[in-house]
């Protein structure tokens, strides 16, 4: 059992921006976030002996070389897109618990605004896209080329079967934007969004409007995992990994033929994580849910067990996921209104909330938090954290 065997002991961020861009390479961005995480933990680069790099955004050995991590013993990358950081969190816990490494660094960051934009899906290399040759041979020739279009197909079927509405999707967008108003680091701080403005937002990939989609931003974040024993010797309140799991929908490389069209990686992963932690969804004080698009928040709340499948729409209505609601979600503003930090920001925000460092958006006496990741065609990862 991995329960309470490892802790997050350091977090770092670069800050996020759009125009004119970070002015730094993606490698430098991630190194700056890593240095910030080391400082937060009270560690040096040479202490790091494990690195889990984000897919396609740099190699573990490159980060180790720059940071002076002379004893790199554990290096890997988990290929789950936006689900990778939380899946890496679990893998880091496994690594330190087994002794494969003592201090594992997980960096991630990109020039998602000023560099290659998500929308410009790579058109020359079939191996670089989720689904690989399947997407290349069977999706792209039919005009299905980018994530909002894939997920819109899932969303419309959900709307048909369960009556999920645009207004409910809008409730997600509005909640994230409200939270961003309390986060000076959020790109949408100072730019509130009403449900009326949301409903007037133009359709991009119907049922997705522009305001259903996450931001495209530059920036990086990083965090460090070590054993519970080592965590006691460091400066900050250790954040315990009570439960963690990841999973893949079936089949993971193709989504249109799934027997259970609404299955995601979380369908498998969430029960495992809650069982490991020995808590239930009702015990959770907040959730940081990977919000690439509004509907994916609704879908993950369902598959993670915060409500039944089909009830996610009503779960998010009437301020249910806002601060003060039954389950505050994405207290930083998330990918929709803070920045697209590839899911690392969700982990960083969970740590801030559990440490009591979340400023104006702090949840009083936050004890238990959930973080999820979502990637590719619905890969899922989840961690249950406590202080």
């Amino acid at each position: 059992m991995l329960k309470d065997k490892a802790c997050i002991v350091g977090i770092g961020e670069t800050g996020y921006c759009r125009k004119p861009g970070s002015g730094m390479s993606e490698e430098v961005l991630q190194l700056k976030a890593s240095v910030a995480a080391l400082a937060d933990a009270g560690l040096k680069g040479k202490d790091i002996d494990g690195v889990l790099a984000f897919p396609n955004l740099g190699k573990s050995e490159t980060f180790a070389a720059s940071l002076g991590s002379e004893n790199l013993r554990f290096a890997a990358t988990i290929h789950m897109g936006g689900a990778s950081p939380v899946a890496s969190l679990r893998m880091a816990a496994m690594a330190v618990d087994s002794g494969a490494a003592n201090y594992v660094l997980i960096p991630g960051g990109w020039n998602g605004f000023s560099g290659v934009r998500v929308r410009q899906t790579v058109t020359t290399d079939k191996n670089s896209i989720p689904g690989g040759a399947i997407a290349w041979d069977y999706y792209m020739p039919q005009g299905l080329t980018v994530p909002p279009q894939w997920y819109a197909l899932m969303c419309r079927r959900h709307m048909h079967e369960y009556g999920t509405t645009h207004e409910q999707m809008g409730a997600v967008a509005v909640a994230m934007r409200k939270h961003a108003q309390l986060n000076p680091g959020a790109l949408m701080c100072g730019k509130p969004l009403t449900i009326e403005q949301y409903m007037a937002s133009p359709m991009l990939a119907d049922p997705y409007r522009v305001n259903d989609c996450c931001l495209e931003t530059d920036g990086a974040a990083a965090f460090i995992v070590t054993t519970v024993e080592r965590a006691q010797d460091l400066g900050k309140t250790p954040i315990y990994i009570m439960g963690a799991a990841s999973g893949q929908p079936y089949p993971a490389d193709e989504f249109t033929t799934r027997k259970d069209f609404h299955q995601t990686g979380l369908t498998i992963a969430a029960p495992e994580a809650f069982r490991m932690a020995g808590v239930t969804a009702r015990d959770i004080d907040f959730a940081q849910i990977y919000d690439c698009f509004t509907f994916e928040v609704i879908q993950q709340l369902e598959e993670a067990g915060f409500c039944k499948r089909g009830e996610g729409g009503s779960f998010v209505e009437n301020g249910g996921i806002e601060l003060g609601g039954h389950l505050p979600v994405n207290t930083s503003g998330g990918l929709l209104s803070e920045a697209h930090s590839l899911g690392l920001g969700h982990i960083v925000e969970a740590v801030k909330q559990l440490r009591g460092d979340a400023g104006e958006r702090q949840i009083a006496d936050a004890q238990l938090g959930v973080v999820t990741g979502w990637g590719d065609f619905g890969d899922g990862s989840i961690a249950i954290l406590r202080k």
Partner: protein
Amino acid sequence: MSEYNKPLPGMDGLTKEFYDFCKDEALHFQKCTACGSFRHVPREMCAQCNSFEWEWMKSSGRGTIYSWVVINRALHPAFYDSNPQAVPMAPVVVEMEEGVRLLSNMVGCTPDELKMDMPVEVVYEAVTDEITLPRFRCSQA
């Protein structure tokens, strides 16, 4: 036809076989000869029974609409730059009588006219000399 500059499938292996059938205006799916399961997209073995024995079977070509997305703003340069009239377009997931699902597009049916479970049938669009894509139209029967 030489001006077609939208994404095309890689024409090798089972994918070439699948699209070569389309060129002959005959949609085919793989059927496992051990357990009888149909499958799409093409794969080398049956995920139900792990048999490597299979044959191509001609599809009835009939199915129903399972989901769709209306793309109002194309985000891929080939769909965006080449032809502004290309949007809105509406990729559809069709659930075939054989039980498999297939991603395609409708012809002669605007996005507004799409309905869940609407019966559709396959038609063929030769987009280049070599490649024909399966499309669908509202069922005529």
